[in-house]
């Protein structure tokens, strides 16, 4: 019968006993009444008929009890009984139970952790923000390469887009707060005035931004702060609204406090404050960029209307961008706007982590499969040990269905325990990713929400069925007579049903091998990235001094910079020092400009652009970037001298066709400058980038108030840092110095994403190796114990310990070899998936394959050796007498 008939019935008999009892009495009453009527019709007296009727029924109470009994044998009670029985079985074998639950915990925990990261970082990265599945991000494009967008362009999109419900801007920025002699930067966002309404999160204290606070240059120094900032800096002051705080030396009024658990909208960072767009210039030194259609800086989000697909939105927005390109050719020629799903967002960590997580999902499923194979194997081994019990129960009349249900119930018990453990693992690991980012404040939480829980429950269910049905598959073969007789002893490797357990082991070896290959490839790739020369010396020390926040303006800052660099050069052990506006491989972006070159004819629709850095004299000497021709900048290249530039080799190759460009002209931001030198290429944004055209201009001619300071020295970092603070304080006791790092640290930070991939895959690969070894060990131990008689016989007939050792080992290695061969074949196909995560490593790198092969072979030899050695200790007399 269908469950939907059954269920109410069963529940009724369980929970509504009274009703069932009444029904039963009434039913029997009806029967008795009819019987009495019949007897009366036959001529009995009423009293007599009544007694006769009761007699013919055979005792009302007895019948009732039998009816109750018939009802009670139902699914739920059976289940409870199975549960109790299962618990008893698991308690009886604590070692086995712990091992299985541990395996399941690892497998389910790995999956839950990965999915919670995917959920918390890629799919629903912004806690408390409503309707995240309809959020997309926008960036500009220049002829298919990504660029930022400008606020006027976005306003036009907002006005014309019919498929967008709302559009808002949220651009990460930082403000400097000086605490003692160390400067600190806190991270915040510049947001459009509609931000809080658009994301559907509102302050718990105070208010969000008014629409007019988004406009008017520097007119609204107001700020909404995070709960964390409120608690840590203001000790949760309830009177905080209306108080003021300096951000980058501009006094802001605090107008709101956001709820706990809201971190803004930037994957990888927790925001501490939000300021309106009108205050953009405070945080971004260029003036007038809010109204400038050519100033591209904005990072925008759009919530699509219900039912609108990304493609439809992209089409409409592309059409709007095309219209803008014709309306404003001077700024928008060749430019478009691209719609990105949240998980591909290029301007935060999501886009960087996506390839890693794509791999991780595959890897965690592999681990889960290995776990299932392993647990299945363990249960299988145990089901042989329980064969007697099963057979007896079959003989006593238990139906196969009942046995099956009991096995599945036991599987459920195990997988529920494993799932609970897995959830704990995932919960503990939710902030683990951030630990892989060295010396950096990164916020990358996993999120365990309903969808992650649902997925875990689904995994749990699949495992239950898998681990419950595997032994059941074996009991299917149970023949009563065979198994009630004492189990016939087997011949090593020739058991009929051994193939099933063997194939589970082969599966584990195969999958582990693939993971090991992946881990090895990624490790090689990371080593390549980290040992590749970035094109500059990595032992240079770097720091900066937040002058702007201390109220310095250009002339004063210039004097300060000049005096400070003199003092730094005079420090003991300092070889040379210099300034530059932006650090290579840092977070800040380089200046970018449209360029024109004498003698270079751009193709139609091509607008040559290049990025550049503003650097002081001695920059190249300090950074160890070799000069190829021409000269370095000198102190003579100041604001009064003719404007000059130094270009890199890629730029020479692209725009001067390799000809020496010294003396040639280059147009930078509309001004012509003369090329005076050529330097070697180096890395600018990331270690794995392709060579790009890049040039340098003198800091004096393109002034920046707070450039980074680079120091080449033989002294340790701490000494230099202390000395620097002393010198800075001698010049101005109010100034603070930012944390000093080596450029090597900068390189390491910029390769954190690669490190994440390597660490995770290596961890899972190691886990897989361990599990596969346990699996192999389990199967070998079992076959040794099962073939004790055969081994004893062989030894009695004169086989030496080495023969026995060889016999057992060869069987184990046969399994391993089979797994490895399949693994090599599959890995050759699968490692291509690592594609863009690999830097200068072929996905079929023979070294990686060889290394993984060796590790796997060693591990399995170790796993087989112990059982094999135990086999040689078989006492022939005892083994033979046991029969």
């Amino acid at each position, binding site marked *: 019968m269908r469950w939907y008939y059954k269920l109410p019935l069963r529940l009724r008999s369980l929970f509504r006993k009274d009703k069932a009892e009444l029904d039963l009495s009434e*039913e029997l009453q*009806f*029967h008795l*009444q009819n019987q009495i009527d019949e007897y009366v019709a036959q001529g009995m007296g009423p009293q007599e008929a009544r007694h006769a009727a009761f007699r013919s029924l055979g005792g009302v109470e007895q*019948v009732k009890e*039998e*009816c109750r009994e*018939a*009802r009670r044998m139902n699914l739920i009670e059976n289940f409870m009984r199975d549960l109790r029985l299962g618990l008893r079985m698991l308690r009886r074998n604590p070692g086995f139970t712990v091992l299985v639950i541990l395996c399941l915990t690892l497998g389910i925990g790995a999956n839950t952790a990965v999915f919670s990261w995917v959920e918390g970082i890629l799919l629903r990265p912004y806690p408390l923000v409503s309707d995240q599945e309809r959020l997309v991000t926008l960036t500009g494009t220049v002829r298919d390469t990504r660029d930022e967008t400008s606020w006027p362009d976005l306003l036009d999109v907002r006005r014309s887009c019919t498929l967008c419900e709302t559009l808002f801007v949220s651009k990460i920025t930082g403000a400097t707060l000086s605490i003692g002699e160390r400067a600190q930067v806190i991270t915040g966002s510049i947001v459009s005035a509609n931000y809080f309404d658009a994301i559907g999160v509102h302050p718990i204290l105070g208010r969000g931004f008014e629409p007019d606070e988004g406009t008017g240059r520097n007119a609204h120094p107001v700020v909404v702060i995070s709960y964390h900032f409120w608690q840590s800096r203001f000790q949760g002051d309830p009177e905080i609204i209306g108080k003021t705080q300096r951000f980058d030396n501009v006094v802001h009024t605090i107008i709101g406090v956001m709820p706990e658990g809201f971190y803004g909208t930037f994957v990888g960072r927790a925001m501490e404050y939000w300021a309106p767009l009108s205050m953009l210039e405070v945080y971004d030194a260029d003036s007038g960029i809010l109204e400038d259609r050519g100033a591209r800086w904005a990072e925008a989000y759009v919530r699509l209307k219900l039912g609108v697909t990304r493609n439809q939105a992209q089409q409409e927005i592309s059409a709007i961008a095309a219209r803008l390109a014709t309306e404003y050719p001077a700024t928008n020629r060749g430019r478009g706007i691209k719609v990105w799903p949240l998980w591909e967002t290029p301007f935060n960590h999501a886009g960087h982590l996506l390839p890693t997580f794509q791999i991780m999902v595959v890897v965690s499923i592999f681990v889960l499969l290995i776990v299932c194979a392993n647990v299945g194997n363990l249960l299988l081994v145990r089901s042989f040990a329980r064969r007697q019990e099963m057979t007896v129960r079959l003989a006593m009349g238990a139906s196969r269905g009942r046995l099956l249900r009991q096995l599945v119930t036991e599987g459920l018990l195990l997988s529920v325990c494993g799932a609970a453990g897995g959830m704990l693992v995932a919960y503990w690991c939710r902030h683990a990713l951030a630990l892989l980012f060295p010396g950096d404040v990164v916020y990358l939480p996993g999120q365990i929400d309903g969808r992650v829980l649902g997925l875990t429950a689904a995994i749990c269910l699949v495992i239950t069925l898998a681990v419950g049905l595997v032994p059941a598959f074996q009991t299917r073969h149970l023949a009563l007579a065979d198994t009630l007789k004492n189990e016939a002893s087997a011949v090593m490797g020739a058991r009929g049903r051994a193939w099933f357990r063997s194939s589970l082991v082969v599966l584990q070896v195969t999958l582990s091998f693939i993971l090991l290959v992946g881990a090895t490839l990624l490790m090689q790739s990371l080593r390549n990235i980290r040992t590749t020369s970035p094109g500059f010396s990595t032992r240079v020390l770097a720091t900066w001094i937040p002058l702007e926040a201390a109220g310095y303006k250009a002339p004063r800052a210039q004097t300060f910079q000049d005096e400070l660099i003199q003092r730094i050069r005079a420090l003991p052990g300092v070889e040379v020092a210099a300034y530059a506006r932006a650090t290579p491989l840092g977070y800040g972006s380089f200046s970018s400009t449209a360029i024109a070159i004498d003698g270079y004819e751009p193709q139609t629709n091509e607008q040559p652009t290049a990025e550049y850095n503003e650097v002081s004299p001695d920059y190249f000497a300090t950074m160890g970037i070799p000069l190829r021709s021409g000269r370095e900048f000198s102190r003579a290249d100041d604001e009064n001298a003719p404007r000059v530039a130094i270009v890199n080799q890629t730029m020479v190759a692209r725009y001067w066709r390799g000809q020496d460009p010294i003396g040639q002209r280059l147009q930078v931001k509309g001004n012509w400058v003369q090329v005076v030198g050529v330097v070697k290429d180096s890395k600018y944004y990331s270690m794995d980038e392709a060579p790009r055209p890049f040039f340098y201009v003198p800091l004096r001619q393109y002034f920046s108030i707070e450039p980074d300071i680079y120091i080449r020295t033989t002294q340790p970092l701490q000494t230099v840092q202390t000395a620097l603070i002393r010198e800075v304080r001698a010049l101005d006791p109010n100034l603070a110095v930012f944390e000093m790092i080596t450029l090597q640290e900068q390189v390491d930070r910029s390769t954190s994403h690669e490190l994440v991939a390597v660490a995770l895959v290596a961890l899972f690969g190691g886990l897989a190796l361990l599990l596969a070894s346990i699996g192999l060990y389990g199967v070998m131990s079992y076959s040794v114990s099962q073939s004790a008689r055969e081994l004893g016989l062989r030894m009695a007939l004169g086989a030496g310990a080495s023969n026995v050792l060889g016999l057992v080992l060869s069987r184990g290695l046969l399994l391993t070899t089979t797994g490895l061969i399949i693994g090599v074949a599959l890995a050759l196909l699968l490692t291509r998936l690592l594609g863009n995560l690999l830097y200068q490593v072929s996905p079929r790198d023979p070294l990686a394959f060889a290394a993984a092969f060796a590790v796997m072979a060693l591990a399995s030899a170790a796993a087989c050796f112990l059982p094999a050695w135990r086999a040689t200790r078989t006492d022939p007399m005892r083994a033979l007498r046991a029969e």
Partner: protein
Amino acid sequence: MAKPSDLVQGTLDLLILRTLALQPMHGWGIAQRIRQVSKEVLQVNQGALYPALHRLEQQGWIRAKWGESENNRRAKFYSLTPDGAKYLRQEQAQWKRLSSAIGLVLDMS
């Protein structure tokens, strides 16, 4: 409590299902109908009838519903479910095979 003169165990279920295949009926009616159809040969043990009905209901082969009897009393009517009908067909075929086999053995001369 099945006495030798009573029905063989298991056949009661079969008879109940067969009877219900005609029309939904209450317990009393089932007993009467079996007696009539078998020309008074088969006497259903009334003490065994109701537990059997409840067991069949639990197994999902029949379904119960309260209704009005011919003599206007409230009675519990049982009817066959699709699963029950399927089971009945199997059991009927099984029974026919068995009885003809027994017949063959008994007719041996």
